[in-house]
């Protein structure tokens, strides 16, 4: 019998549900039948369960779960790799390099990440502090980054500051001199794929005392990050933003996060000429935060179409080798990452996959009532305890470990020694739609 003496009811309640969750996350990926109401065409039952399994074991699923593609009927789901015959594979013991330099210019720090992925912005308030900590610690462990999103920089993240990107968005929540100075990378969020052109919105219910303090706002009042930056109407204006960051922190790399309009190629080139080190394209089908359904489905183009458009244009403008192109918005699996790179990106920015690793069922109830019932996208003091940061950290690390195994295996079969050699290799892809 468990030791319950000396524990409060709240402690016991939290322990009880955590134990149940962990049992369920281990049970379902191995069960003969998936939970019937789980999944959708983008994140199928198999993809969710495979992610849970990878997050638990750190290994590639070997029980028949489909972990490579979803069932959306388009984009990454109609692409596959042309794997050559086995005699052309590299030997099994070949060292395959997954590292990616993020700075291709001759100014700023020469940063490199160990895997071609980092965590996308999810703000304090839209996710719990535990989730932020889990992501930051995982980024440190993996030798990559995670982004604050636009909600402030909780003091508990400062120990991981070398792995945290400070996001500057239109609401400027939590942007301070010190959070710019901490940052190895500062990310300007001009737009985001889930709600392109619409800005951000934190519902009043989530603006608790602590969240409001972090954002220097009034508790329980909804917060808007308006669209767009009204100080930026041209590439030259954007340059001012870059200069502002450089003045505050000359070492920092500047990333520009944009959505995918028809002229996304022009936007990318403009960002480069304004001084960005990283152009981060956020396609329309992704996102973790609350967004109007009409925006998620209908505004701006999916990332699969934006990447080659931008890559080609950067090449034609002779600047492709001076800028790092990161892609996000519907990148769900290691194979999606590889496909994005083969289409022309350098690497990917991940969001939903990390949340699924730590227990998200993609039920879309993040904004309902007290927030996520699994303790992820919530500021409810009791609920957020349901996802302990150390557990979450390990799950995220494990998932990326399983991704790394898959990427190395794929590259070896494609005869490539480095993930960097995959970039723009459309010849290695085939269309299976």
């Amino acid at each position, binding site marked *: 019998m468990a030791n319950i003496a000396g524990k409060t009811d709240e402690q016991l309640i939290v322990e009880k549900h955590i134990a149940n969750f962990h049992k369920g996350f281990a049970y379902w990926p191995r069960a003969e039948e998936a939970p019937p109401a789980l999944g959708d065409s983008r994140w199928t039952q198999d993809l969710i369960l495979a992610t849970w399994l990878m997050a638990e074991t750190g290994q590639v699923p070997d029980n028949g779960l489909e972990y490579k593609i979803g069932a959306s009927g388009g984009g990454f789901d109609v692409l596959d790799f042309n794997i050559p015959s086995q005699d052309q594979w590299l030997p099994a013991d070949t060292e395959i390099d997954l590292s990616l330099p993020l700075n291709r210019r001759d100014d700023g720090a020469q940063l490199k990440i160990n895997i071609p992925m980092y965590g996308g912005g999810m703000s304090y308030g839209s996710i719990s502090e535990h989730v932020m900590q889990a992501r930051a610690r995982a980024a440190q462990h993996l030798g990559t980054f995670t982004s604050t999103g636009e909600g402030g920089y909780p003091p508990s993240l400062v120990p991981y500051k070398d792995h945290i990107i400070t996001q500057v968005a239109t609401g400027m929540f939590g942007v301070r001199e010190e959070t710019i100075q901490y940052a190895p990378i500062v990310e300007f969020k001009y737009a985001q794929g889930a709600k392109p*052109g619409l800005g951000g919105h934190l519902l009043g219910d989530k603006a608790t005392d602590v969240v409001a303090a972090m954002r220097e706002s009034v508790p329980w009042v909804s917060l808007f990050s308006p*669209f767009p930056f009204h100080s930026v*109407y041209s590439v030259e204006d954007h340059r001012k933003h870059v200069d502002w960051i450089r003045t505050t922190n000359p070492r920092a790399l500047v990333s520009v996060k944009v959505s995918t309009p028809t002229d996304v190629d022009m936007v990318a080139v403009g960002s480069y000429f304004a001084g960005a080190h990283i152009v981060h394209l956020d396609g329309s089908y992704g996102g973790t935060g609350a967004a109007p359904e009409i925006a998620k*489905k209908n505004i701006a183009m999916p990332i699969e179409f934006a990447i080659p458009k931008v890559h080609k244009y950067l090449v034609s403008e002779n600047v492709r080798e001076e800028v790092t192109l990161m892609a996000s918005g519907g990148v769900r699996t290691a194979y999606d990452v590889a496909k994005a790179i083969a289409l022309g990106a350098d690497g990917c920015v991940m969001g939903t996959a990390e949340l699924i690793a730590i227990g998200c069922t993609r039920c879309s109830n993040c904004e309902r009532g007290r927030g996520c019932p699994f303790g992820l996208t919530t500021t409810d003091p009791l609920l957020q305890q349901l996802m302990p940061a150390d557990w979450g950290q390990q799950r995220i690390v494990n998932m990326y470990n399983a991704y790394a195994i898959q990427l190395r295996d794929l590259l070896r079969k494609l005869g490539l020694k480095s993930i960097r050699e995959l970039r723009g290799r459309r010849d290695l892809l085939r269309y299976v739609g």
Partner: protein
Amino acid sequence: MPEHREAAAGYHRYHIPTQPAPDIEKWPSRFKVKVRRSGLAKLLIKEVFHYRGRKDVILSRPCMYGVFSGPVGGFMPREEHCVGCLRCTTEFPEFVRIEHNPERRSLGDSYFTFNYVDQIAYEASSGLVPVRGAGYRGKFGGEGWDGMWTDMSEIVRPTRDGIHGRETISTVVDIGFTPNYLEFDPSGQPTGSTPHYLSIQLPIVLDAPQTELAAGVARIYARTAAELDTLVVLPFEYTTGLGEFGDAIVPVVRPEHARRLGQLGFTPRIIEMQGWDEALYAAITTAFPLAIVALRTGFEETDALVSYAQRGIKVFHLLADYHGRSADGGFVLDLIRGAHTAFVDAGIREEVTLLGSGGMIAAEHMPKAMICGLDAVAVDTPLLVALQARFGGECSARGASSFRLPTDLNEAWGVQRLKNLCASWRDQLLEILGAMGLREVRRLRGEMGRAMFMKTLEADAFAGLLGYTEASNG
């Protein structure tokens, strides 16, 4: 008060007042919650022992939405509260199962699928824009509406208004005739054609079924249109007794009504002819010389539209069936483009107004239809769904579809549901316009440059890949 002050004092920003209007007919729940009772009983016994009777710990259940909060808890789950979060089945996989409810999924028909029904039910009951977390859950692109995305303005375009300007984006559209240019005589007086149009506050016209209408429905439609400052297209027979809403009513007349036009209890501002008929046209223009005459006809007539315009018709209400198909099988999105282009090619697009009905069943279809060339959408089946109509099988043919409305339909509820729906759709339109940086919806019409089509994008992105041919994407 000086005149300009008076005008300013009289100004009010257009706004649709919304308020909750919950369902009056109980629809099947979205999920089935199946709890094996023996499993639950065992758990309770185990936890009583384990937690030594600490009630709050024992009774702490996974569901935060009240499904297990009835008098007997999980032994009789209250399925109607289930939002499908799957926490219960994650915590207790051995005895809890959550399934989609097939009864709920059978609402609507093969075109107006349950997802659209769910969406409309939410919009009509709340008046809100549907907002959810965790990204998009649907298929990648697709056919028809789903193969089209709208543009947004990124950092280097100076015309955008964004969220700050959203409140001042105009959704007013004009219905009627505007000449391509004005002509004046030497004294400066206008000669030739002068504008003849009316303005409505949102690009939504209510289109009532032209078949039998349940009691009270015409009144609900008419009052809603009047309160929204828009129009309702009603069969001639159902306009009786609705004179108080006359300014909002567009009676649909057929040749047999030619001699009964005087029986209308009001002077219509706009009147719709069901199909072209020379004699009827003459009768209408004689009876109501100031009215705008619209032609209600199928998209199949696209080739003849320009000639009707030359005969005096300046407003065209074009119909596809309820599934968005024309008699020759075309889809409404392409049909709209065809009609729009016909007028552009004839050089008179600015002179005419195009309304369209059929297959436009979600908020997103409205801006897409306008980008393809409509001035406004005449909404049909979504209004019935907002009133909780149940489909009697497949409902595609306009004259042969059966919808069953709730028996206890009442006017106040019905009007609020329709107003909520229109408010939600208008707000969603504002999201699209805000993202594009457009200040007024009239600029959306025919803006094909602000649309992205899956076929084109896929060809640009994937052409040259092994296995990709033009035929791959249809």
